[in-house]
């Protein structure tokens, strides 16, 4: 949740900065005020100042094409930076009640869902999606966003519905339509479509499992595993093994749960997410936590892959290889200068 809002905040900032030079021709007071806000935004150095600007704008012009952005800014700066989710919710919920445009209400609403959850206010995610759906079909990304939010909130039926919506849009035609400016080869399209399918199947599997349809859920997981892409260390680029492993654990298939959760907990991008469930599976198999650390390290040793050698140039023009470090402990770090 935090990560998503942070991203949004960055998008908001970039969006605000990028729009600086634009001059609106019409006398629309909301746009004039927006231009003023953009200059003021760059001067605002504290979260408090940014919150004040966005709050003031939303109060004066609650229903414009900028409403979603304003709401995101308030949610990020007030709700997270200043740790005042209630205050942020008060502002955003009042504004949202006045936003008539379903596009803006959807954008603001998706942002506000996490906030609503943290102040214990139920926010109806289905209505937001349905209102937008009444105006135009949701995109793949929007279906995914709704599904993932619904999974987080435990709204399994909605998650199922929108995962299937996403799955339906996981086609080559739709992918090309979503990126009109990119010239993908057929192969690139195929890879990306499979990623989309795998992600939608993973989400749907977890929704279905929680809805009690275990058999279909397991089929979804297996199908996602078949087509999904994995990292260099063999971990799916989705939460598949975490969901599948937890489902297997609940079904009493402890060995499978341990296998799946080990991959995620030992080699995944976010090991901490899977580790508690792996421990649970370990205890289910062994009766206690005894030996868990030894189990982790021996499993790591057994599953670890050998790093592929490569040759590249250094900045003096010498050819260097990974093999030069044989017998040493090596940190291989991939970076780029910002």
């Amino acid at each position, binding site marked *: 949740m935090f990560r998503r809002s942070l991203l949004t905040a960055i998008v908001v900032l970039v969006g605000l900065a990028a729009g600086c030079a634009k001059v609106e021709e019409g006398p629309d007071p909301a746009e004039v005020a927006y231009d003023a806000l953009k200059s003021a935004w760059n001067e605002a150095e504290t979260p408090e100042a940014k919150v004040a600007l966005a709050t003031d704008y939303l109060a004066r012009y609650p229903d414009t094409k900028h409403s979603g952005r304003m709401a995101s800014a308030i949610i990020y700066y007030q709700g997270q930076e200043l740790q005042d989710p209630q205050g942020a919710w008060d502002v955003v919920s009042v504004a949202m009640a006045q936003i008539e445009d379903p596009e803006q209400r959807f954008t603001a609403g998706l942002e506000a869902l996490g906030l609503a959850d943290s102040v214990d206010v139920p926010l109806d995610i289905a209505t937001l999606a349905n209102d937008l759906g009444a105006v135009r079909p949701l995109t793949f990304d929007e279906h995914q966003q709704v599904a993932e939010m619904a999974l987080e909130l435990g709204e399994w039926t909605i998650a199922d519905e929108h995962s299937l919506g996403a799955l339906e849009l996981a086609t080559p035609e739709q992918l090309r339509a979503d990126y009109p400016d990119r010239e993908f080869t057929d192969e690139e399209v195929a890879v990306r479509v499979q990623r989309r399918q795998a992600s939608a199947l993973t989400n749907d599997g977890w929704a279905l499992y929680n809805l009690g349809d275990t058999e279909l859920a397991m089929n979804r997981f297996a199908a996602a595993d078949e087509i999904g892409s994995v990292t260099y260390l063999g971990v799916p680029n989705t939460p598949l093994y975490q969901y599948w492993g937890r489902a297997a654990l609940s079904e009493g298939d402890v060995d499978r749960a341990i296998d799946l959760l080990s991959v995620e907990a030992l080699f995944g991008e976010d090991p901490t997410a899977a580790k508690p469930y792996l421990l649970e599976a370990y205890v289910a198999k062994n009766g206690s936590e005894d030996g868990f650390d030894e189990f982790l390290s021996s499993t790591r*040793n057994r599953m670890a892959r050998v790093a592929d050698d490569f040759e590249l140039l250094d900045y003096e023009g010498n050819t260097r290889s990974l093999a030069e470090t044989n017998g040493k*402990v090596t940190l291989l770090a991939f970076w780029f200068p910002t």
Partner: protein
Amino acid sequence: MELPRLQPLYEKYKDQGFEIIAVEGKRDTERATAFIEENGLTYTMLENGEGDDEVVGNLYKVRAYPSSFLIDRDGKVMYFHLGFDAGDEEHLEEEIQGLL
């Protein structure tokens, strides 16, 4: 920025058999060399290749920067780490100590 935080770890453990290889993924030579010099980085710095020699995305399937792999004395990848936030180097140091 993450790379300068690795320099103290390198200096502390290099005599015990610890190496760092940093591969710049986007072939931005000018900025990379300026950055390396500015920060006094002394471990191995390489530039990603092109086409068949492309290592970062094709071989190591890196989708986000910074991505790091910690390799043990037998050449096996024991840890993966995405990102490099303040405090991560403490965790990394423990892992290095565990492998040395």
